[in-house]
């Protein structure tokens, strides 16, 4: 079994539909193609070196950030603007095609997740997999998320930060 694409918590495997393994290059193509992307940032990013890269990625493509858990405080202190929602609240909104999105311009077509508690994120991704055919999900965590449409593989910190750096890099 390829350990890079076995879900980080292996028992979250839900069925036949599995995420596509992506590199930073493929992730970039997905973002470029999206009309209204959104980034959901969870509290595991608090005090994490990845936080600055998250901010750069959002800035590079002008992606609005939703913070979950208590990530809002940490992001605000780092000068990164975000809108605070509970994880289940934002997923609940995202699954409604009629929702106007965080900017009021319509629901999002690509949602990037990073820093959400793994198993809870997996549940939220499952909701979107089943009930939000109008959008795609992409996870930027260092863990493979089988319930996403596309996911980075399982990685150690060093490789993961390189992935994020590539994605954040200004060409």
């Amino acid at each position, binding site marked *: 079994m390829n350990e890079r694409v076995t879900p980080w918590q292996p028992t979250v495997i*839900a069925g*036949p539909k599995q995420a596509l393994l992506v590199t930073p290059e493929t992730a970039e193509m997905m973002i470029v193609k999206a009309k209204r992307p959104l980034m959901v940032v969870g509290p595991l990013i608090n005090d994490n070196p990845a936080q600055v890269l998250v901010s750069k990625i959002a800035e590079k493509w002008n992606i609005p950030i939703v913070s979950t*858990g208590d990530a809002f405080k940490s992001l*605000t202190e780092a000068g990164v603007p975000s809108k605070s929602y509970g994880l*289940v609240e934002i997923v609940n909104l995202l699954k409604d095609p009629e929702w106007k999105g965080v900017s009021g311009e319509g629901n999002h077509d690509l949602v990037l997740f990073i820093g959400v*508690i793994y*198993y809870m994120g997996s549940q939220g991704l*499952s*909701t979107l997999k089943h*009930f939000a055919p109008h959008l795609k999900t992409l996870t930027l965590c260092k863990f493979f998320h089988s319930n996403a449409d596309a996911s980075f593989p399982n990685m150690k910190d060093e490789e993961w930060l390189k992935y994020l750096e590539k994605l954040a890099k200004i060409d």
Partner: protein
Amino acid sequence: MENKSKAKELKDDFWKSKKLLVTTGKIADDIQEDSSESKGPTLKPSVTDLREWDMKLLERYTPFYAPFCDMCCLCTYGKCDLTGGKKGACGIDIEAQQARFVLLACCIGSAAHSGHARHLLEYLIEKKGENFPIDMGTNIDIEAPIMRVVMGKKPKTLGDLKDALDYLEEQMMHLLSACHTGQEGKSIDFESKALHAGLMDNLGKEIGDLAQIAALNMPKGEDAPLVELGMGTIDKEKPVVLCIGHNVAPGAGIVDYLEDQELEDDVEVCGICCAALDITRYNPGAKVVGPISKQLKFVRSGVADVVVVDEQCVRTDVLEEARKNQACVIATTDKICLGLPDLTDEDADKIVKQLVNDEIEGALILDPDKVGEVATRVALKISKDREALKKLPDLQEIQEMAKECNECGWCVRVCPNNQPMMEAVTSAVEGDFSKFQELYENDVCYTCGRCEQECEVNLPLISMLTKVGEHYTKDEKFNVRAGRGPVQDVEIRKVGAPIVLGDIPGVIAFVGCTNYPEGGEDVAKMAEEFLERNYIVVTSGCGAMSIGEYRDQEGNTLYERYSGDFDAKGLVNVGSCVSNAHIPGACIKIANIFAKKPLEGNFEEIADYILNRVGACGVAWGAYSQKAAAIATGINRWGIPVVVGPHGTKYRRLFLGRTDQPEKWKINDLRVGEVIDGEPAPEHLLYAAENREEATVVIAKLCIRPNDTSKGRQIKLNHYLDLHKKYFGTLPDDVVKFVRTEKDIPITYKKEVLKLLEEVGWEPRALPQEPSLMKFREEKASDKGDSK
């Protein structure tokens, strides 16, 4: 409608009825039936009788599904793939399948509590007789608020409780049958049925706790003593009998036997999980080892000579684990037989001999009194020979074991919380045991043992953790207030008004299991936060124990710092899982005693009152079980919101409100006969928070109710804003939704809130006088006319 349940009047009726029962019990029943004209519309509600109420809730709090599995594996057509909008061979879709699973979980949970209640009731009737009175003392007239509402009847004797159980069991059979392939087809109706299963769960718990309080003379709402809690409280020099589970009967049998034989000082009786709490309600001399998270740790520690298991939340490998250190196991209910020989009718001497001589691995004994004798005598006989197994280990031994680790990392990946077990092991190689210690304390590792199952080199990781933990915390002692049972009517009279008007900002109940994301301390810290802020904090079961395992900087537990009164700044431990019934029970009593709402057959009106006026919120931070699913769903049907921890998303369904849809928050003001703009209060009915910080803020918000007076709203908003500022650094944007007039704004935040109001073009709106989801009185009257 005449209010038949006014506390004052009941007091008189109570004594009159008692006389009747002694001589002419049948006439007492007949009189109750004759008074049915004064009862509400939903006596003994069937599966569909409360469907209309459920639909009102589900319209506002739409089910949110997070499938745990993409397939259905229930019948031989399957497995069926339900992804991408596909339906299964029977026609079921993914939403309905999730809802079916929720119903199934609620049925299992409800059956566990009610099966427990049935066991207890039959046992207690056998001991005390059907006519044994249910006497809750002079401070409680409404002894069974849930039963009054659902059955329309006050139970006077143990025998009366059987009627309620019979009704409940019939309902449960119908609910379970709806899970069969080819029955219910819509998620929304599965949810209505799940809510009914939750209500049956509430009823079953009330029956169970009422029976044991009355027959075993447990505390009746009065202040209960502090009892010892913690692994360090157990005297290892003595023979130790450990009870695990929820049914007090075997534990009571042990306590009785010790008293009869005058052996109380010679044997340690202790417990894990709710059985422990209930034994201390029976006899405060017993000790509580701790919540369910202590189970594998304590069994592996070897301290228990005899392990007595009854029902619910017992590790299914308890026999194997106990035998590893030569402890004897006695199974005591039909729920858990463990493959052991049924020796219920065998002579006690013979059973003791067989167990002591290791002729049998353990015994199934379905007679609690015999369990008491056998467990005690076996512990007395084998304890001496087991002394070596109870000794603390040499840490060098752990260090040597740790060297075998190949650092594959799978112990971390399969851990439900991805706790750093591998780091603990690799540090131990260097003689640093601090990482193990961090996992051990506060049950950050709750010893599920999945890491051991995965370990490529078969390290006994939980044993290593246990032994390191014991080495450093062998003297760790805490306390918990013994379960006091129901909230007294006199307390409700005192706090009913301040709760409904908002002067007491809320009643928060910390209940449930120990599937915590970061250990038990989170629960204690949340309880501490709200106690300091004048809320009433109620607790039960494993949550109550987790709260007791936390000491502040001065070394005091929260039970030492706060009284057990149901009042502002009170920390009330109602007792075990079945005692959870007293939490909705208290809310029901508020509707009846304070607002004079009739109880009998009047579920919808009572639930509507609670939803709109009683600022209560349940918190099941470590919910793991089907019982917890049933508890939360039952609480929800009464209109009480519940917050679960992040693992709660695995229940597959939440009930979430949408604040961006103002039409969903319109309410009927029954006093003025108008539909008016409302507010998202409470915003959600079942919500999962990601961490303690988020949960704390959400809990404060979920205590807001449409009925709050401006003064009450100010108080509630003040706490919500304070906590949001503390954990999020700013004021919440949504505060504008909860300000009806400027008088609602907390003085401390007036300037900032006014600025936010200005930014959104806020306009003041009227405070509702009688907020409700129920129909206007004229509509109801017209409905009645139509039906005639």
